[in-house]
């Protein structure tokens, strides 16, 4: 499991209780646990929802799953009254390659997720929260289950929480292996016992979500931040980051660095420093070739593009994304052709298949890049890959199509020369894939 790392440049908010045994409820309480929810309740039944949402808005917290939608605003979309029950849904289906931050949260600070979900429930008037972890996180589910049971045992969950007169229950479960379920509406489908295929929007989850009730769905890191924000105040949290990008976030730095790990850095922190200072630089003193800045779906940055601050807006401006904060570092030995193939292989495997451009596009790109990789490519194949990716962009049923097309476009546009050279037999880098490869396939 991911080891705990630290660096002096870190600004610790969320990681405050990591490594301190906070999975045990008594220890969590010692570390100000369940103080935030009580602080919220202390505002009084009338003022509480508004106070929570205002605090969240002022914190500038933006969704940590990848899209970066302002959390407080998302919560404010939930109608005050609803004929159907409202729900809070914690998205712990962490599946973006390069990302393992929620993994740490579930392991090190499960009660923060519970408390955050409770607060979200109080804010919108939901009585039930669901915490959905990816299927591979069974051991983490067990930690969460224990934490939830402990919270019930203390009377923190269930009827009349902290004397508020309000009830809140939490149900935990995992998925069973599907990247697409990380998409919010697909996750709701999965939670309702169906195939993880996204839903038509509108209506949006805030109005019609889980079991057709108004639902807020937030990434686990987003939710785990909530108690901290309530305790320290929205403005104080916002001040840690940059404009419109409040606070800190967990950056998972992986790949060719000396000290990979999950670091908590303020929003807007320099990508160059993150690689060279925080993560100890490129492994073995090699040259940096490229960086995937926010998980596999974010367009690659070349080595000369890393003088940039890590926040949603700066990366968007640079034509990439902050995504899930998973920074994957590639040194000079990497073949971009191979890396692009491995990336699309993942998306082809994970496409839910619902819509034509994504289902057929990912398959076509994978097949073409496979042929190129195996030495049967022609230059027009690069154009074909680019054409297919461009025609997936913005045309698919859900953002998955973009997630598959964007990195592909990044690779072939920024490293076109390397593809051309490869096709001509001048292969850059050292192959990592064995010649005899099994293609991961789905289907029974």
């Amino acid at each position, binding site marked *: 499991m991911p080891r705990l790392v630290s660096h002096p440049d870190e600004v610790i908010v969320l990681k405050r209780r990591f490594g301190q045994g906070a999975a045990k409820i008594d220890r969590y309480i010692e570390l100000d646990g369940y103080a935030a929810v009580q602080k919220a309740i202390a505002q009084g039944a009338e003022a509480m929802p508004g106070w929570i949402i205002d605090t969240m808005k002022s914190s500038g917290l933006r969704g940590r799953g990848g899209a970066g939608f302002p959390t407080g605003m998302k919560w404010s979309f939930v109608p005050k009254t609803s004929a159907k029950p409202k729900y809070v849904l914690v998205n712990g289906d962490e*599946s*973006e390659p390069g990302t393992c931050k929620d993994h740490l949260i579930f392991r090190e600070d499960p009660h923060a997720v519970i408390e955050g979900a409770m607060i979200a429930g109080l804010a919108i008037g939901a009585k039930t929260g669901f915490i959905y972890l990816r299927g591979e996180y069974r*051991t983490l589910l067990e930690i969460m289950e224990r934490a939830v049971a402990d919270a019930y045992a203390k009377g923190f969950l269930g009827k009349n929480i902290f004397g508020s007169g309000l009830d809140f229950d939490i149900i935990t479960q995992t998925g069973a292996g599907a990247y697409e379920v990380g998409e919010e509406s697909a996750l709701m489908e999965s939670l309702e016992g169906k195939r993880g295929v996204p839903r038509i929007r509108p209506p949006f989850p805030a109005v019609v979500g889980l079991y057709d009730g108004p639902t807020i769905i937030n990434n686990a890191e987003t939710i785990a931040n909530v108690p901290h924000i309530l305790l320290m105040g929205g403005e104080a949290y916002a001040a840690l980051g940059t404009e419109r990008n409040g606070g800190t976030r967990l950056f998972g730095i992986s790949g*060719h660095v000396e000290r990979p790990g999950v670091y908590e850095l303020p929003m807007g922190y320099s990508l160059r420093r993150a690689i060279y200072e925080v993560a100890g630089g490129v492994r073995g003193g090699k040259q940096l070739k490229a960086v995937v800045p926010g998980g596999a779906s974010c367009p690659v940055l070349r080595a000369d593009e890393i003088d940039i601050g890590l926040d949603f807006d700066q990366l968007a401006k640079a034509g990439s994304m902050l995504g899930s904060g998973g920074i*994957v570092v590639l040194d000079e030995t990497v073949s971009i052709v191979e890396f692009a193939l*491995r990336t699309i292989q993942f998306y082809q495997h994970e496409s839910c298949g619902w819509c034509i451009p994504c289902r057929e596009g990912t398959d076509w790109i994978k097949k073409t890049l496979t042929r190129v990789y195996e030495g049967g490519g022609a230059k027009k194949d690069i154009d074909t890959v680019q054409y297919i990716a461009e025609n997936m962009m913005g045309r698919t049923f859900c953002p998955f199509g973009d997630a598959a097309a964007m990195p592909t476009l990044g690779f072939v546009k920024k490293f076109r020369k390397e593809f051309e050279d490869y096709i001509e037999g001048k292969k850059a880098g050292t192959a*990592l894939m064995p010649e005899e490869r099994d293609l991961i396939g789905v289907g*029974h």
Partner: protein
Amino acid sequence: MSTIANSIFSPELAARFDKLVTLYPVKRSALVPMLLYAQDEVGYVSEAVIQEVAQRLDLFDLDVRSVLSYYSMLRTKPAGKYNVQVCTNISCMLRGGYEILDHCKKKLGIENKQTTPDGQFSLEEVECIGDCCSAPAMQVNYEFHDELTPDKVDEILDQYAAGKILDSTQKDGK
């Protein structure tokens, strides 16, 4: 007491399922967890599992098949007692994921998606398992093993073979 007569599951699991279906606002929500737990006990999602789960949730068998075939962790064929799942996605690939996979193949003497003749181990190349910052990583059943080297893999697999590591599906004494 199971609500299903002649359940194919152990009394403990049957009781757990009885409870699970009452937990959610809609019974069907229990489908994915039930399939996982059934697979843990039976070893895979057999026809019998499909039929009983469908019966418990008032679904058509076809509904269950449609859903289970969507999720890559659910399998309809038996795997080894220890299912070794090696990640080769980008972060792991950069740090030797494919070497680890190759090493496992040699060590276990099987190819991807195969099971050792004694039924102890099966091997699977999988997509990202969420342990990128400690790559390369693998899971044996649900247990994470990371920062792997061939030597470390040998050690881990030997320990499993000797029954020294129990994963969560076995800890409950199942």
